[in-house]
């Protein structure tokens, strides 16, 4: 077995393991921190796929932004002291059955499908190419995304403001 393969399995194990923690942990604090492992693992997988820019974005936004937000929200809505039923889960068995069937179906199809094959597989930094595309072919989505973020900004303000008194 190649070294790279070992590393891949290691990363995959960390990613899936911590994702499982997120899904199964009885304590929301553990769940939230496990999410860190998942995000980081996914970022590592991106690196493996030669997507250095995406990996950087993943770390910056997911780990640096979303995760922090989630942790803040967890802290704000829970007293650290009460750790009893912080993360209630119901109907685990039926959910496991449904999800299990789903996963086997997905894996089955993934293995059977003749996916498109690229002409050549390149391992090269993609940052500059993505940057070019953002300013050229993908300019419109890029601008649209900025509008989405503006809306989200305004929205977060709307949702947390006090009532208007005229």
């Amino acid at each position, binding site marked *: 077995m190649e070294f790279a393969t070992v590393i891949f399995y290691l990363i995959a194990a960390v990613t899936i393991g911590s994702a499982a923690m997120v899904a199964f942990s009885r304590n929301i604090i553990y769940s939230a921190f496990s999410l860190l492992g998942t995000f980081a693992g996914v970022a590592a997988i991106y690196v493996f796929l030669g997507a250095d820019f995406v990996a950087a974005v993943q770390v910056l936004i997911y780990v640096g932004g979303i995760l922090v937000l989630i942790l803040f929200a967890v802290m704000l809505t829970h007293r650290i002291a009460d750790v009893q039923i912080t993360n209630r889960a*119901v*109907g685990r*068995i*039926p959910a496991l059955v*449904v999800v299990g*069937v*789903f996963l086997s*179906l997905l894996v089955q199809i993934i293995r059977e499908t003749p996916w498109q094959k690229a002409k050549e597989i390149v391992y090269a930094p993609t940052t500059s190419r993505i940057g070019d595309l953002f300013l050229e072919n993908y300019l419109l989505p890029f601008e649209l995304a900025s509008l989405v973020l503006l809306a989200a900004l305004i929205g977060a303000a709307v949702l947390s403001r006090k009532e208007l008194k005229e």
Partner: protein
Amino acid sequence: MDHPIQTDYLRWIVLLPLLGAAANGLLGATLQKKIGKWAISLFACAPVLISFLLSLKALLDLLALKPEERFLIDRLYPWLSLGSLHVDVAFWIDPLSTVMILVVTGIGGLIHVYSTGYMHEDKSYWRYFAFLNLFTFAMLLLVTGDNLLLMFVGWEGVGLCSYALIGFWYHDHVNTRAGNKAFIVNRVGDFGFVLGIFLIFWSLDQQGHGTVVFREIEKFASLMKGQEIWGVGVVTLATLFLFIGATGKSAQIPLHVWLPDAMQGPTPVSALIHAATMVTAGVYMVSRLHFLYSAAPETLMVVAVVGMATALFSATIALAQNDIKRVLAYSTVSQLGYMFLAAGVAAYGAAIFHLMTHAFFKACLFLGSGSVIHAMGGEQDMRKMGGLRHAMPYTFWTFAIAVLAIAGTPLTAGFFSKDEILWQAFSSPHSSPLLWVLGVTGAGLTAFYMFRQFFLVFFGECRADSHTRAHLHESPKAMVMPLVLLAIGSIAAGWIGLPSIFGGSRFAEWLEPVFGAHHEAHGPAALEEILMVVSVGVAALGFYLAYLMYYKSRLAPERFSSLAGGLLYRLFYNKYYIDEIYQFFFVGGTLLLARIGAWIDRYIIDFIVDGSAKTTAFISWFNGLFDNHVVDWLVNKIADTTFEAGDKFRKVQTGNINGYLYVILGAVLLAMIVKLRYWS
């Protein structure tokens, strides 16, 4: 015939009542307050009367033409154009629809006039007339529309107005329930009607001639021969579906249940809508599409059997009713049965003839009963009436004439038309002697219950309380005058359709261009005479029995009512428990299905989400079914059932977001399973 004569006044026959309705509907409340009720009356009656005059003009115009060219058409504008379907808003008249518009505007006009007297004290005077005019409009649209779609619009329109007018006095819950019942039963019929239209269009479209215009359907009807769906001929299927519509609108078994309840509306409404016009729409429709029905012998048989069964069945129910209007209601159902009997033996002319004469005498009877109710201060129970002939001479005499007519007394209108139907039932190629025997029996029953009513109301001692007795009075002129005219019609209307042994029927001749050559009697004239005498004899027997029981009181009615242990009487009195039977099978059955379905649904959802289940629902339902034995009436309960099902489905909406997400995933999995199982 391919190019009927274009005119431009036909539209006004139809549209004038609409204008009247608009005027009263939009401005009525103000007019009534500012100017007074006479303005409302003017806006209501004038359009109908003008329409009547225009209809007469149309009649004269038609008479001026050669018999086979008697068509007038008035195209307004192209209405729909969808693929191969092209429909105009166009009104046409031929001899058949001329008869109908004359009846609708003529008798309708009289009833409008009568209503100005009858409804004079009502607060919502304007609303009443707005609906009455709207009804007239819809009915005229139904009979003059030159295609099935336009007919359908009218068909729905009359149903809607009928609903509004039955529930006119909506303060009383009974009335709104009756309105709902009528509406919903009619919708069941309409469902069949729509399917029939689609089937006809679809079948013709397959042959490249998709159309819903009557004349074109007639032209291409032969193309539909040989086409089959599920092993049944398309023509048969389409006509059967349309006939379902007719049973709904014309109150035939099994959809007759709404008409007796519809008597909750004001009496002139009962006269106009539930006796003279709307309920005859089914007969008109069958006659209008006679070429299809004649091409489907199976359907004709169904029509004849249903008509006959309805005629007999409701005649027996009428024997035991005590409400003055209910007797008339069941009598109407019965007479409509006769019309369908005639249509079912392909004697469409006879059906239309009876339709016309019936419109006269039944309207007269209803208006007469309205006059009686008016005088009795709203009392409708015949056991509390009696001896009214002195107080109300006009009502008495006109009622007497109408009773004679409906009983089939020789030389009245009812005699000629009923005799024509019975003779056709005996002699036409689609008939059988059995139909004739049953028909004559029905005629005897008719004579009996009508005279029973007549004697109970007008003869003997007055059984009302002293207060009512003191206030007995003849009705105002506006009400009496229509009665007189209708009574005259009840006699004279028959003379235009004298049967063949009296020298040929003008009426049949008039309709000949529509229905084709008149079926000449297959039996000898002598036979026709003998049959006629027999049927008159049976009717006379009915009269004599009623005379003995209710006039001379020599024969106690109890002797008959206690026959077979009173079983028969109870059956008649309770209308064969039809409502209850419907309740049990339809409502019980659907309730069962809905509950089981909903129970399973809920059980699974609850199990998944909460891991717990509630099993008591089923048991409590089981008790509930037996508790439910006091069964009321059909349709309200069917509605309840639907509501119930809705309630159960709604329960799935628990407000629980996890449950919602389960539904997505479950659906995706289900789709995959179906795909793997059936399409891979």
